[in-house]
């Protein structure tokens, strides 16, 4: 009898635990969707320099080296941000990237990054990738893994050099690095 009571007690405790755990209201999404959402927010909370190509017409998001989002970034096309329509393009080279406001570099093109970076210099293009060390190698926004959350590392130097202004709301959430050599 005592044992039965104990089982019920432990069971009830377990149920309470489960219920309590459920009360937590975090969102759970696949990784690419979280990243897609963050890209939208970067468009929303970044100011491109007056007089740049990126300030007029539709705001162009580009993917270089193929779709790194398994299609999850596609729905961004046709949406608006700050009353501007968003277009999504796939580009093959830095030359084609000139109209892009934001360029996602597929991690498969990691080895091309140094050349790409040089070719993109002096343009107001926000660069985004998820390969290890992207931000320390002059990239602006690097997606990282933090346990089972998506993190962002921002290279504030690279952002400033491109005359982009990212609002504090995002900066506070991200971790920052400076442009450096190749090591960590």
């Amino acid at each position, binding site marked *: 009898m005592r*044992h039965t009571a*104990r*089982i*019920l*007690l*432990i*069971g009830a*405790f*377990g*149920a309470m*635990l*489960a*219920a309590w*755990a*459920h009360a*937590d209201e*975090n*969102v*759970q*999404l*696949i*990784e690419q*969707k*979280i990243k*897609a*959402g*963050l890209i*939208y*927010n970067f468009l929303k*909370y970044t100011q491109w320099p007056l007089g740049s190509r990126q300030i007029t017409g539709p705001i162009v998001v580009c993917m270089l080296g193929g779709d790194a989002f398994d299609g*999850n970034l596609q*729905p*961004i096309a046709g*949406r608006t941000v700050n009353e501007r329509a968003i277009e999504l393009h796939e580009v093959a080279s830095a030359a084609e990237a000139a109209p892009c406001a934001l360029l996602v570099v597929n991690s*498969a093109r*990691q*080895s*091309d990054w140094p050349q790409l970076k040089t070719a993109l210099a002096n343009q107001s293009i926000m660069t985004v990738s998820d*390969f*290890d*060390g992207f931000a320390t190698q002059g990239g602006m926004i690097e997606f990282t*893994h933090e*346990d*089972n*959350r*998506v*993190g*962002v590392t921002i290279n504030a130097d690279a952002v400033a050099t491109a005359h982009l202004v990212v609002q504090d*709301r*995002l900066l506070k*959430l991200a971790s920052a690095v400076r442009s450096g050599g*190749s*090591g*960590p």
Partner: protein
Amino acid sequence: MPQRQRLTERGFGARYALLGTSVAFCLAIVAPARAEDDVDPFSLSPEQLFDATVMSVSKKDETVATSPAAVFVLTNEDIKRSGATSIPEALRLVPGVQVARTGNAGWAISVRGFNNGLANKLLVLIDGREVYDALFSGVYWDIQDTPLADVERIEVIRGPGASLWGANAVNGVINVITKSAASTQGTLLSVTAGNEERDIVTGRFGAKTDNVSWRLYAKYFDRDAQETSQGTGAHDDWHALRGGFRADWDEDSSGNRFTLQGDVYSSDTAGIRSVPELTPPYAVTIQDDISARGGNVLARWTRDLDEGASLSVQAYVDLLSREQFSLDNDRSVFDIEAQYNLPSLGAHEIITGLHYRYSREELTASPIITFTNSTRDDQLISGFIQDKITLEPKRWFLTLGSKFEHNDYSGFEMQPSARLQWQGDGQMAWGAVSRAVRTPSMLEHNLNAVTGVIPPGVFPVPVSVELTPSPGFDSEELIAYELGYRRELTQGLQMDLAAFFNDYDKLATYTLAPSFVDSPPLHLVLPIVTTNDTKGETYGFELVLNWRAADNLNLSAAYSLLEIDLHGPPSDQAIASEAGEGQSPEQQFNLRALWDVTNKLAFDTTLYYVDALPSLGIDSYWRYDTRLGWHVADGVELELVGQDLFDDAHPEFGGTQIQRSIYARMTWRS
């Protein structure tokens, strides 16, 4: 007597705690899981996105969800949160795998039965390197180690993997995969201290130079001895030192990737051994010092070709020098393999491969083991071809394959398999028929081992029982029939069921041969030859439930049922030909809860049950492990782990009792 009483109570406590957990688990399943997949990510605030947890569509799930085989993956996080401090200990979580610690530095590990310290129907790979030893076709578990923090995942395939994998993948394959050098950048220092894990110190440093990511590691451990069945010290203290490196070159513009890695190690342990002798007292107990030194270097080159084709070539050298009372052996292996994935041919995805392995064993005799030749060079050459045929796009697939092998023991072997796979929405089913063989080893063909001496009594002179060389021993054969079904029952609740029927023929049998008289001293020799006279069937299933109950709570359960039915010669013709029936647990299960109490504090518990092993007189046992992990500060983690908390000590396979272990581990990362 009071001691016994307490043990019984503890047993009951364990049982009811388990029931309670099961009840909680069942209740939890009834609760609705939250569906968040239809959330529009563009409508979320940056704060919500940064706080969102990643729903797993990791490599693990892709592999597991789409493989037409019984696959289970232990991720780096699974291993860490299990509290396991070695590769064999981590395998306790895997359904269908029998893990029994035979001593401080020894494990008997098998998949779907036939477990013993020399278990030989399993293939173990570490980063593509086959770590079985051709001496006995088994694995020396005491030398298979690496910093667990650098292990990306361990994939375990139950059932024959023979058509793709190397020799010995009869009952299963265990594939340990370490992280790339790019994902182990920076410094890691980890220090463990406990009653059994006296100290484990691991250091790793990773960096990138030009286009090469690399890491170096060193690891030292010192483990306290276990105890004998009498409760006295087992004198099997164990310490080992190892170091290694890995370098990965970035993929170049033509799609070439290159990896170079290697390890060196030194391990020292001991044990108490009873050595048979022909003179009174006919057996003496000695301390057996066991030392192993070795190293390996592996290079792998992969190139992406046009139209989805790819080519990879891997080669390694693996050296081992092992000394123990029974036998000293020096083993050298050179192994090279090439795999070519053909360009896509419509409905056909074809993979072919070639494999060559050279091994040399140099043995030094001991008072109990001698051999027909002290050096043996063996060559193994094999090839495989596999075609995955899409019968109906995204629905039906048929995979046909075969491995063709030539080895120096049993000659030509063919190991074909056919797998049919059906893919539905959130579910899949598969079935497979495969043939696999376990090829003979030096143990059967070349070794003469004195297994015991019967003192004079029944016979007027001592009787020496000897396992003698059996060059006529042929491969053991298996035809395996498997069925599997996986389904996402509700959001976050996955089920994986795999059932099998294995039909074995020509299993190794210790057959008695005519005795003869030998001297000096005058004694009778009772020779045993290894023959292929046992048949058998095994059948059963493994069920895994995994439920992401909430962002911060993961519950899982794994149950394994294994029935073994052997048909060997009677005891007047062979020794214990059917003993294998009682050397693997009939039932095993584990229940696990991983709970992130806060984002800095994790509390994990696992409860294991392992059935009795009647042939060895081992009782069933419960094991309760728990871990508390605390992120003290950025890059600093403190963990407290208790293993086998219910029990002071119990035997798992042989006479050695495995003791409760409590340790603390501090890890710094930067």
